């Protein structure tokens, strides 16, 4: 096949599509045709590359040239320079922020150096809408060998030996869950894929479904074979239209190939998958609530046991796994349990995908081996803190997790270490904060989320969190007391102990961890009425330094509420009772005469 000498891979994830990746593809194709290169060059829309910070990104292979922040209007230059003249288009190459050198080869970019891609192995590599490309990358081989060469017990044994644990948050051993579901006798069982992904800022599951939907379909079929189910359901939030479309396309193709349906690969095993749409409630990601929502009931958690494995969807044994958990399965079967368990550390094997966000230079989707340190993730892959600011904290586990400080930067990331440190793995959100972030406000932000998302079934979660939020609000207004801090921790522990589901049980974590790790900051709020990060508006005061003030009247003219008085060439003065703390005067003053106190 001498035709396609070059492939241009264009990121077609939601983020890049929003920045006109589809238009880039269209323009590239037009330019390529205009230059009679259509037999030489193929343009392929792929799943997310992960480097969302610099999106839209495109990669030209086989020379691995990586272009970032590409605009539709760049298509002509790319074709002229790279494809016709054969030299990388310098202005679109990634620039190493540390030394400003251009880097063309994606494998030499720091962002990719420490990553290991298992769950994301095909994202940004294959065309997710083409089942052949998946098959070319060993797709459905794991299903094929499982059906024809192994018994369900043997497959379960492989998964158990691999040490894979659930990536949806809890970290329950996946092989064991399959075994439990298998051992429950029933005429009907179900495989459910949890694609609810409600953690704010998280998008790993979406990216897998958008970039490699077949890997999840294949894994669900394998799971069905193992536990004895002929039916699978994907519970996916309706806000993920692209992922839904790609999944639908993939399901149709798999059926056409006979990889879903009756008598798959002549093995007598039959399996098919349906989609169920969620309305985007965080609590519906909790497995019992998810099942009730699929049954047409209110999305409220119920008491466990019975676990879904025993009594789930319409009372039938139901195996619920997360998208990323499933995406690992085919590789484990193809490459073996030993291979998988050689990656990671003692009790956490393989890799974890994180959505890296916040104040780091390279935000995006990353997949790293378990046991890597937070420092490596934030400083090597993430490229350090933006604008040369100082690292302050990192929140893992979303609204259920905690904030860790620079003291914890060197602990190896795994399920157990994060819990020991007062946070958790969660589904993989990772938000980095710098010196400008106020930790009281951060805790308040997460509680606001919890308040919105609590289903309201349990009093501690419904009312307790409301009270926590009120106390935090009081503190950010400078009206808190030292006793309030004690109340916060007492109430937090009550909520943890007396809530029914994981949402309530973990909701006080952001409060407890910030109370523990940033106690001085809370104290500054309640005893001195100060916000050290300068975020709590009510605690700020703008004052004019009479010595520095030249009386230029710039602040006077710009203050929206007329809080500033003063004669020309005389020091000005801010009337605190009128000031609304908008900060305009501070930004406008050319003589650094305005101070924030």
């Amino acid at each position, binding site marked *: *096949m*001498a035709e*396609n*000498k*070059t*492939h241009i*891979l264009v990121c077609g994830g939601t983020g890049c599509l929003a920045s006109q990746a589809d238009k880039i593809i269209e323009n590239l194709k037009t330019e390529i045709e205009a230059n009679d290169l259509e037999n030489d060059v193929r343009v392929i829309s792929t799943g997310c590359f992960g480097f969302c910070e610099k999106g839209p990104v495109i990669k030209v*292979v*086989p*020379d*691995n040239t990586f272009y970032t922040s590409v605009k539709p209007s760049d298509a002509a230059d790319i074709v002229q320079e790279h*494809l*016709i*003249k*054969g*030299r990388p288009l310098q202005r679109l190459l990634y620039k*190493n922020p540390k030394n400003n*050198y*251009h*880097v*063309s*080869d994606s*494998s*030499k970019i720091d962002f990719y150096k420490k990553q290991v891609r298992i769950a994301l192995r095909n994202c940004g*590599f*294959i065309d997710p809408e083409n089942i*052949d*490309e998946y*098959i*070319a*990358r*060993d797709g*459905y*081989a794991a299903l*094929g*060998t499982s*059906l*024809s*060469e192994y018994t369900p017990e043997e497959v379960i044994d492989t998964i158990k030996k691999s040490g894979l644990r659930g990536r949806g948050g809890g970290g329950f051993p996946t092989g064991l869950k399959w075994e439990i579901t298998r051992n429950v006798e029933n005429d009907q069982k179900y495989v459910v894929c949890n694609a609810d992904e409600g953690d704010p800022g998280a998008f790993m599951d979406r990216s897998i479904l958008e970039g490699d939907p077949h890997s999840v379909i294949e894994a669900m079929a394998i799971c069905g074979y193992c536990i004895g189910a002929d039916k699978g359901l994907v519970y996916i939030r309706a806000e993920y239209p692209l992922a839904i479309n790609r999944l639908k396309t993939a399901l149709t193709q798999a059926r*056409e*190939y*006979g*990889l879903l349906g009756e008598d798959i*690969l*002549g093995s007598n095993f039959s399996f098919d998958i349906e989609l169920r749409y969620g309305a985007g409630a965080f609590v519906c990601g909790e497995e019992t609530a998810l099942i009730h929502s699929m049954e047409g009931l209110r999305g409220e958690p119920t008491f466990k046991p019975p676990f879904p494995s025993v009594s789930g969807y319409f009372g039938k044994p139901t195996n619920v796994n997360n998208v990323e958990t499933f995406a690992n399965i085919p590789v484990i079967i193809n490459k073996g349990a030993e291979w998988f368990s050689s990656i990671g550390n003692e009790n956490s094997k393989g890799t974890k995908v994180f959505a890296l966000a916040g104040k780091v230079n390279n935000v995006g989707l990353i997949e790293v081996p378990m046991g890597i340190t937070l420092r490596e993730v934030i400083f090597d892959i993430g490229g350090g803190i933006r604008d040369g600011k100082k690292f302050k904290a990192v929140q893992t586990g979303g609204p259920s997790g905690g904030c860790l400080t620079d003291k914890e930067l060197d602990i190896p990331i795994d399920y157990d270490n994060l819990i020991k440190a007062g946070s958790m793995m969660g589904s993989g959100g990772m938000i980095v904060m710098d010196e400008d972030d106020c930790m009281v406000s951060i805790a308040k932000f997460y509680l606001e989320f919890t308040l919105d998302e609590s289903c309201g079934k349990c009093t501690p979660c419904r009312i307790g969190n409301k009270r926590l939020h009120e106390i935090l609000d009081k503190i950010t207004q400078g009206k808190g007391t030292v006793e309030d801090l004690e109340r916060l921790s007492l109430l937090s522990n009550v909520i943890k102990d007396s809530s029914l589901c994981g949402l309530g049980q973990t909701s006080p974590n952001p409060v407890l961890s910030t109370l523990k790790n940033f106690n001085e900051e809370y104290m500054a709020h309640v005893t001195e009425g100060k916000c050290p990060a300068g975020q709590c508006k009510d605690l700020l005061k703008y004052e004019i330094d009479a010595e520095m003030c030249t009386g230029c009247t710039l602040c006077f003219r710009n203050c929206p509420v007329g809080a500033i008085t003063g004669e020309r060439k005389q020091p000005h003065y801010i009337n605190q009772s009128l000031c609304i703390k908008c900060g305009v005067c501070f930004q406008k003053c050319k003589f650094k005469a305005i101070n924030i106190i």
Partner: protein
Amino acid sequence: MKVKSLADLKKIKSDVQQKIKLREQGANAENIVQIKVAMATCGIASGAKEIMNFIIEELDFRGLDGIVTQTGCMGYCYAEPTIEVVLPGKEPVVYGFVTRDKVMEIIDKHVMKGELVDGIIPVSYKTIDE
């Protein structure tokens, strides 16, 4: 088209593998021989495009993995078509006045056995990647 057995699946795989071979190689570039064909105006005018296609065919024919890419003018316009051959872990070697016969010779001797053949142009530059 229904896939009826694991053997069927394997057959499809080997049929479609070509489609993404280019990308697999890209991901594995350090370990594969790379051949760059100078394809600026001067190169194309002297038949570089045909030479590039021929190299790809010959590699395929021998079942060899290789990355064949085009590059800009290498500065040896007098010697076009020119190609640069990089064996894994070795310094690049540039050949000038490359013909079909020369391609066969380069593949048979240089690529397969690591022996240099006639027609080498001394490299007068260093690539600066960063």
